[in-house]
């Protein structure tokens, strides 16, 4: 460990390009290096979430079941799928909405928690040599477990009511990777900002519900006019929701342009978030 005037000195000599590659790899090498710590804290977080309730894990399953049933009942009759044909059943539309909700809820869970994340772990950060940049990794993994429950349920539902799954669901892991990268980037960004000011939390609480209407959760952006539709893609969630609907509900390959754009935005968010967090890290233990 070597610091001069508040800046870390990296041993060895690297040129700009090598330093850049090093930076790109850093989130991965860091996570691998701290893998035992990540697992230990994750285990603790998951236990904490359900300890004290009698039914425990059952709640994690009951909540999405209830919402799925509600959407089926509420939207069932009149709904039309984006291709203009009436939905073959209420279940189809419910699954269509549910796919959007899984992605959106996954995002809001991170957006609400991230600003207070470092405050929650203040005692660790101030009294042990805890790698703060791994906290967003841990909380994203934690949220992944809930999202996986929702996804499993969605697949089960489809299997039960249509009797078969599209082969494209095999692409789901490929959907997860950029989505996790995007969420991690957002969490790094928001948690570093949240360490300095509590306003970040209030900001997220105010804008997340508005964002829901700028995201095609309950409707399909396919029905919008071409200009508005293009604008919708500025919201990265639009891409993710379109892709998950394509591969799970409709069983078709997603538009390659949409995929490329979404992956690009995710990667950008991931490294910008990480860069921002590392930049602020020196000051974080002093302010929380």
């Amino acid at each position, binding site marked *: 460990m070597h610091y001069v005037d508040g800046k*870390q000195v990296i041993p060895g000599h690297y040129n700009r390009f090598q330093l850049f590659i090093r930076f790109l790899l850093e989130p991965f090498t860091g996570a691998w290096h701290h893998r*035992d710590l990540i697992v230990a804290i994750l285990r603790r977080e998951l236990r904490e979430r359900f300890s004290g309730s009698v039914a425990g894990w059952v709640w994690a399953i009951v909540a999405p079941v209830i919402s799925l049933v509600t959407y089926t009942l509420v939207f069932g009759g009149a709904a039309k799928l984006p291709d203009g044909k009436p939905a073959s059943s209420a279940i189809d539309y419910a699954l269509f909405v549910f796919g959007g909700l899984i992605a959106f809820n996954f995002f809001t869970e991170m957006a609400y928690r991230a600003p207070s994340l470092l405050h929650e772990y203040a005692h660790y950060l101030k009294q042990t040599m805890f790698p703060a940049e791994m906290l967003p990794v841990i909380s994203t993994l934690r949220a992944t477990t809930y999202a996986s429950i929702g996804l499993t349920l969605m697949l089960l539902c489809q299997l039960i009511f249509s009797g078969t799954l599209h082969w494209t669901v095999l692409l789901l892991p490929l959907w997860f990777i950029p989505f996790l990268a995007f969420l991690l980037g957002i969490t790094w960004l928001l948690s570093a900002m949240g360490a300095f000011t509590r306003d970040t939390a209030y900001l997220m609480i105010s804008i997340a519900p508005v964002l829901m209407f700028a995201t095609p959760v309950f409707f399909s952006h396919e029905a919008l006019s071409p200009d508005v539709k293009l604008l919708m893609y500025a919201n990265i969630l639009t891409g993710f929701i379109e892709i998950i609907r394509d591969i799970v509900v409709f069983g078709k390959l997603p538009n390659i342009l949409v995929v490329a754009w979404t992956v690009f935005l995710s990667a950008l968010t991931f490294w910008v978030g990480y860069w921002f967090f590392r930049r602020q890290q020196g000051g974080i233990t*002093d302010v929380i």
Partner: protein
Amino acid sequence: MSSDVIIKAKHLAKAYKLYDSPGDWLKQGLLGSPLLGSSKTYYKSFWALKDITFEVEKGESLGIIGRNGCGKSTLLQIVCGMTRPTKGEIWVKGRVAPVLALGATFDLEATGRENVLIGGAVLGLKRPEIIEKFDSIADFAGIGDFMEQPIKLYSTGMRTRLAFAICAHMNAEILIVDEALSVGDLAFQKKCIDWIDNFRRSGTLLFVSHSPAELSRLCNHAIWIDNGHVREAGDVANVTRAYRKATLVEQDSMSRFSAV
């Protein structure tokens, strides 16, 4: 640089920024950036450390003494890498184990056993290592069947025992002990001091205490930090003597906590 030096601090200084209101923080962030060529600052600086220079060689034990608020804890945090110095240079080689307040990170709902697993991971041990050392840790802590009980049922002394037991099994090269021992009973304090004595044969120790007697017992060198400066350094006997003498004369005034 001699290869024996394991910690090197040169002109360390640490400023904390104090803001009168969160609004000032925002102004500083938006307007105070040097990119805009602004030199106005919206905060007051509190210099916890002003100019600290010292070196510790491998196998040496350095005592650190000083009054509350003199900057001891900040210095230790910098040595551990928890916070960065505003100015100056710090160079540390080797695995550092801070016995600062590990007990503070315990999860009250979890059992002692679970906390050993988490605490060990936080200190950087690999899971198989912790499991292998578990019996030895339980033995050192000496809290018997309480190991399977939630930490919330523990007394303060029992928590300290468990925390120290985990730190003692880290195989660290540099041990940092910050007034952690005063909570345990005499028998446990003796056990810890014996263990530290044993550790000193191979490792390097930074020991913070208000007790000149403990300091003389465990350290060969000492530095006395006063108001962010090293006021006295050298042989432990000389430093503690000067410190004791000064406390008889100087008043306990609070003016030293004010920011400039």
